């Protein structure tokens, strides 16, 4: 086929280029700019090369928040994905209760993140919060503002409460898309409930689960608002996740160079993990 060059084609591309430039490229390049220079007042810059990157990657503080982040995201995925699937399986497939369940499930997703944080903060206060009083009433010493274990479990519980619904809704959509005939066929074959789950429901949910895991990974890996409102990263630094740490460095200490370098490293980690995960899950899905 012969292709004739048509300079007008550029006109169609320009709006997208401008949009992407303003919402992604220019901010990103600003960060790149800060990450390789020492910034002083009055826009005075000194070239520093890779110094900030090395500093961040070597710093104990970054390692700690990174490990904390991995542990948190790991816990979130391990709890929310199976729990979400289980709830979706238990939900009714038809009848008037379907919409009731769906609305109940969607409710937590509609609440703004800082409100969730504030809600749980009050809910879990050991002296006046319902949850805090209850746990202490059971004889367990619980105070999320002072004990790392309490702070962690409250943060994880809050995220499970807020986001498991997303996994439920996605799984439910995947389950609803399975034609009834599959279940009949399985019944005729004499398959038990576990076999139906393992050989029909799970493979049929594969795509939506990939999306669910990916979304939950990215969101929980970048979590900021809720723990910021709930614990502020404390007690000490025990719930200081990557983004909280990043904000502390950038805005608290105003170390723009290290903060910019850390942002880029952070960004690349999320991108890399998502890409590896997606490639693995989708392998064999070609054709």
């Amino acid at each position: 086929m012969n292709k004739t060059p048509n300079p007008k084609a550029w006109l169609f591309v320009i709006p997208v280029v401008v949009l992407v430039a303003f919402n992604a490229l220019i901010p990103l390049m600003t960060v790149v700019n800060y990450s390789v220079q020492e910034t002083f007042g009055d826009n005075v810059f000194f070239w520093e090369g890779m110094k900030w990157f090395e500093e961040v990657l070597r710093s104990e503080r970054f390692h700690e928040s990174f490990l904390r982040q991995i542990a948190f995201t790991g816990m979130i995925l391990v709890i929310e994905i199976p729990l979400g699937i289980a709830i979706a399986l238990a939900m009714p497939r038809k009848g008037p209760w379907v919409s009731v369940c769906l609305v109940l499930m969607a409710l937590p997703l509609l609440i703004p993140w800082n409100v969730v944080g504030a809600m749980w903060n009050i809910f879990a206060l050991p002296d006046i919060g319902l949850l805090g009083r209850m746990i202490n009433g059971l004889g367990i010493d619980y105070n999320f503002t002072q004990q790392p274990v309490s702070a962690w479990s409250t943060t994880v519980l809050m995220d499970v409460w807020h986001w498991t619904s997303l996994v439920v809704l996605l799984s439910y959509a995947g389950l609803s898309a399975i034609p009834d005939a599959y279940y009949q066929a399985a019944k005729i074959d004499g398959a038990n409930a576990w076999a139906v789950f393992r050989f029909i429901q799970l493979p049929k949910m594969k795509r939506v689960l990939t999306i669910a895991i990916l979304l939950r990974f990215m969101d929980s890996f970048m979590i900021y608002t809720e723990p910021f409102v709930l614990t502020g990263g404390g007690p000490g630094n025990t719930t200081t996740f990557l983004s909280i740490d990043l904000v502390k460095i950038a805005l608290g200490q105003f170390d723009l160079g290290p903060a910019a370098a850390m942002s880029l490293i952070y960004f690349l980690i999320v991108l890399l993990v998502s890409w590896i995960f997606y490639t693995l899950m989708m392998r064999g899905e070609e054709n």
Partner: protein
Amino acid sequence: MGIELKKVTKQVGAETYIYETDLSFEKDGFNILLGTTLSGKTTLMRLMAGLERPSSGEVWFEGQDVTGIPVQKRSVAMVYQQFINYPNFNVFENIASPLRVSGVSSQEIKQRVGKISDLLKLTPFLDRSPDELSGGQQQRTALARALVKNAALVLLDEPLANLDYKLREELRDELPKLFQDTGATVVYATSEPLEALMLGGRTATLHEGRVTQYGPTSQIYRAPNTLVSAQVFSDPPINTAPVEKKNDTFHLTDLINWSVPVEYANLSDGQYVIGVRPHHLTVGTATEDMVRLNGTVQIAEISGSESIIHFNVEGHTWVSESHGVHQFKVGDSVELSLDVSRCFYFHQSGELVAG
């Protein structure tokens, strides 16, 4: 002795899916359930399979009452309109799955799957997963699963409906051969009258949850006992029109009339309904023993070597099916000939007039 339904009904909530039905399907040849969507074909099959319990009545299979016995304990295989295979098993494992469940030795599985996949031309695809197959191959895999099981009752629920034309024809030819020597009772549901005719065997016509007629397929086609059976078993739809018998003539209108055939000579005067299959109403000048109609073309479509043309005759729409390709424009006036010797006469209640 195949499967028998004795006074079976099925109600779900306030809705009646199947009205009291007596039906007995034989072992040899295909047993066809013919009816439109929602006529109750699938429900009947589910009742036969044991996937559902009848609200009342009994299901007998090979001389035994199997009413309460769940499907797992019966020897049943079913193929659906959708291509149902286990998504993460390859073709071999899919075909082998019913054998694995019943604990057949892996050597025997290999041999039986090999034989069936040869028969269904699936041998080159045994390593593939179902989503790497064409629709036809996916359905062949599902059929192979049903066959390999050697089930005593095989239920095929519109298995060809989702396939394209060529594949459908191909599989339709093969199906009766595939099940010929299995000794299974085969029930085949379809909404297409032509398919029923091609598969032969016996047909039960279904309409709104009732079996309207049951017997050898060709006999039902030639002699539908009610207007409803005739309507279910006609594609394009059968033409119906009120006629009046006065003495020795049938009157369609004042001007269009014909003399009463000998076999209806004893019929009392009054109102009747005629049913005319579209291919008994053809384009062209009427010969002596035919009735002439003048109509205007409303819709003209060509299906292969047949022309299907909808006409308006004095405010009434008729569908004609003529051999050969005829080009008509909407609004053309055309002369039609109605073969009254081939049409059915029904009482106004819908019963066929005995002739």
